[in-house]
């Protein structure tokens, strides 16, 4: 699978929406049929461009939710003051055209070539999207790389891909922390990810894991600096920030 990312000139292409899947009350997965798609790596993004009848355009970047080799899919959270995300989550229908270009990025990727190094995946909210691509890729490759996913969500109802994550097989530990609301009898973690939670949950530094951290900017800053404080070398902590609440 390695080396399937085609580099070079980025051109806009028209894809067709094949399905829309409700993930949570405010999150949808959009499956696309993209005839000109040259393939992607786990963790990459694509750009979406919307064009209004009067020519007005809006462009945004989203993480790809599907694994390499699978049809392109996005998972989008509706942001209340947004312009593009309300359109994608509320207006878009199967059969609609969606203009995309990509894949984009080569930093926050996992190619699956390394079958030894443990993965420490850490997501805040919809930051789980590129990590889901990594998990699916691992599963499709039948890789035995040990993985821990620490996923911070407001409540259990806000957990994206919950059914899929609960079915992850051997070698994948999924650990939730719920920051705002916990169901009765919840024995898992609560509150925001901090250094003490990471010292309990993250692979110890001597395992030489590689960490992928994705979420809102303050979340990523806290997690990345805590991991470095725990002894992770900075170059083994890959980060992707998507701003604050209310990006677009």
């Amino acid at each position: 699978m390695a080396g399937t990312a085609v580099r070079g000139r980025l051109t806009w292409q028209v894809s067709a929406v094949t399905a829309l899947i409700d993930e949570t009350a405010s999150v949808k997965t959009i499956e696309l049929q993209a005839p000109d798609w040259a393939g992607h790596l786990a963790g990459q993004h694509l750009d979406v461009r919307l064009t209004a009848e009067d020519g007005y355009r809006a462009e945004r970047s989203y993480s790809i939710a599907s694994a390499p080799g699978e049809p392109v899919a996005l998972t989008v959270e509706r942001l209340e003051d947004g312009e593009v995300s309300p359109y994608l989550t509320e207006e878009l229908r199967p059969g609609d055209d969606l203009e995309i270009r990509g894949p984009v990025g080569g930093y926050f990727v996992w190619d699956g070539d390394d079958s030894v190094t443990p993965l420490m995946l850490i997501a805040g909210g919809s930051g789980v999207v590129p990590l889901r691509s990594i998990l699916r890729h691992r599963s499709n490759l039948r890789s035995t790389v040990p993985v821990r996913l620490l996923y911070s969500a407001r409540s259990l109802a806000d957990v994206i891909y919950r059914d899929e994550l609960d079915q992850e097989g051997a070698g994948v530990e999924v650990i939730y922390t719920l920051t705002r609301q916990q169901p009765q009898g919840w024995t898992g973690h609560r509150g925001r990810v901090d250094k003490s939670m990471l010292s309990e949950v993250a692979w110890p530094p001597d395992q030489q894991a590689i960490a992928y951290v994705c979420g809102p900017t303050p979340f990523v800053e806290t997690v990345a600096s805590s991991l470095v404080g725990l002894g992770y070398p900075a170059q083994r902590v890959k980060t992707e920030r998507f701003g604050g609440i209310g990006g677009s």
Partner: protein
Amino acid sequence: MDDLDGNAMGGLMQEIFGVEMTTAIETCAHCGNAAVVAETAVYLRGPGAVMRCPTCTNILMVVVRRQDMHCVDMQGIASLSPAGQTA
């Protein structure tokens, strides 16, 4: 509004440079710090895109798009080496 990071400028940079640039290493002309482009601080919600040094916040790069033309300023970057490596 919190900043984004260089990952968010991946598409724009690929459009300008013709190759994937988020794994490139930039060296700040102000403080000399070297960082992966993906780890720079990026502000996209203004009239143009602004990339800043994650260490000293010096402006590394500004891109203003006007129709299909880009105005690119990279005075804040002392060197940019696309020989970055992926995981």
